[in-house]
């Protein structure tokens, strides 16, 4: 190593030292410590006691744990594709350069600024079975359907009905789709005009252009938004926590993995057990990310690579 290289290395490390400290304190140490604690019985009030793999064995038969995982998967499986689809559709429509594009973009973006707690309180009210706006809109439709089909149909009791509680949450989440819309719009700006012109010459219609020009070019952005959605929906916590007043929802339908970790940590003070759950959650997110990366690799088109 030359003197200059040594100097650069020293300066580089000096500059990144705030991040390095943060990495050790907020990532490396917690991960290692979490792994260690997951093999112990630990309540914060007393020293951890080593219990081997007991926590993991208990998890296998813990119904609440499986319920929380099921709820988390169910929520993610519905909300990720719906959010991606809506964001992409909105971005493509907004990108057509219709007059007032800027105002539309602002309107669609605004809800994503609303703090989680406010969003949760507002949507609890929106989804109120008797007095909420959503059902006030649905009621005329269900009334007509009831009359036509001659059976009694009424709008769902969203957050009080175990069959609809998670859908209510998905709906509330879709309101905050604006962030992804803005990211998609930025991606769409990078699609070369020439490709559309060429497609026009070939007589392609709007759908063909979307399918064969737009989507391939912005596939890295779709991948990015998808992974972000995955990470986000697997740690959903604040909104269901506020909506259920720290509870688990009707028939535990809003008990998510993060909720269960929180309850085990701060309600039953089973920190070792909570660490075991959190590591499994982490491994699931990691595995799904890798699978998604593998599966989409062939379909992702990187410009100039």
């Amino acid at each position: 190593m030359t003197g200059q290289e040594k100097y650069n290395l020293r300066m580089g490390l000096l500059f990144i030292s705030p991040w390095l400290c943060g990495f050790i304190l907020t990532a490396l140490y917690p991960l290692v410590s979490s792994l260690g604690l997951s093999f112990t019985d630990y309540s914060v009030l007393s020293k951890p006691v080593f219990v081997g793999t007991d926590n993991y064995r208990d998890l296998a038969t813990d119904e609440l744990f499986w319920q929380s995982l099921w709820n988390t998967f169910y929520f993610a499986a519905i909300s990720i594709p719906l959010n991606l689809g809506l964001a992409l559709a909105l971005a493509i429509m907004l990108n057509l350069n219709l007059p007032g594009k800027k105002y539309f973009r602002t309107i669609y973006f605004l809800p994503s600024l609303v703090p989680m707690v406010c969003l949760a309180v507002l949507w609890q009210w929106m989804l109120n079975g008797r007095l909420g706006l959503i059902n006030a809109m649905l009621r005329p439709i269900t009334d007509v359907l009831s009359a036509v089909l001659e059976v009694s149909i009424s709008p769902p009791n969203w957050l009080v009905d175990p069959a609809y509680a998670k859908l209510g949450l998905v709906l509330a989440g879709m309101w905050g789709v604006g962030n992804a819309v803005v990211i998609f719009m930025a991606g769409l700006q990078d699609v070369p005009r020439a490709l559309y012109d060429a497609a026009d010459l070939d007589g392609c219609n709007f759908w063909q252009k979307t399918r064969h020009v737009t989507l391939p070019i912005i596939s890295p952005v779709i991948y990015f938004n998808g992974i972000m959605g995955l990470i986000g929906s697997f740690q959903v916590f604040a909104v269901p926590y506020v909506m259920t007043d720290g509870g688990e929802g009707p028939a535990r339908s809003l008990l998510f993995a993060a909720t269960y970790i929180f309850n085990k940590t701060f309600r039953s003070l089973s920190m070792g057990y909570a660490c075991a759950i959190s590591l499994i959650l982490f491994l699931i997110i990691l595995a799904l990310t890798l699978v998604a990366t593998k599966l989409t690799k062939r379909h992702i088109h990187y410009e100039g690579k």
Partner: protein
Amino acid sequence: MTSQTAQRVQKLCLYLLLVVGAIAFLAPFAWMVSTSLKPLEETMTMPPRWIPKEILWSNYPEAVAEMRYFWRYTANTLFLCFMTVTGTVLSSAIAAYGFSRIEWVGRDKVFLLVLATMMIPFPVVMVPMYTLFKLIGWTGTFKPLWVPSFLAAAFNVFLLRQFFLTLPKDISEAARIDGCSEWQIFWRVILPLAKPALIVVALFQFMATWNDFIGPLIYLSEQQDMTLALGLQAYESKGGGTNWNYLMAASTLIVLPVVGLFFISQRYFIEGIATTGGKG
């Protein structure tokens, strides 16, 4: 001629779709403000009336009084916003400089670690972080909520590094020839040029702190120490969530500053979010 008409019809349909969508996205806001101005009885009438018979502005001061510590919560939240914005902007800029403007062995490999840490979900590190802060006696204080922001969060380092990389190398070289130290180049040359990116990071951090729920929930214990987000949840929990007019008034008050901030800094916001996905 016919294809032109078809195109016009298509455009009109799309436009209609966008307008309907926009109305749907605005409706919850309108519903929130409308409810916040109604007497309690009127929130329970069906079908709902958008414009209250009598507009009750007094719901706002009453909701503030009901929450008891509203202004304390505001002061706490602003304090935390100030500290975390200062900490994040400073520390992330320093770290990002080290990841972009100095060439050292293994830099780009270490940067992969930065990206990897963005993937760690908070619930996974929650227990060790909490026990660590408990051990050093910081739980129940504001410290766990702002001190870590001085340790350059990965996402902001990433954002600023992307910006620093776009600045030409020559400007650093010129400063070096003039005898500037690395710190002087950072402080006097690069930082002033990076103002737009720094504003983006500051805005994102302000929003994150203003909106944070789980952090205050686990670290703060005294009622008067709460932040606005936590205070709103505590207020709803205490009242059993039925006085919707007050709840909506309080929500409106907490949403309003964020929306205001967005409108005065829209350009930075949109560009900042666009960078997060576009160059990842």
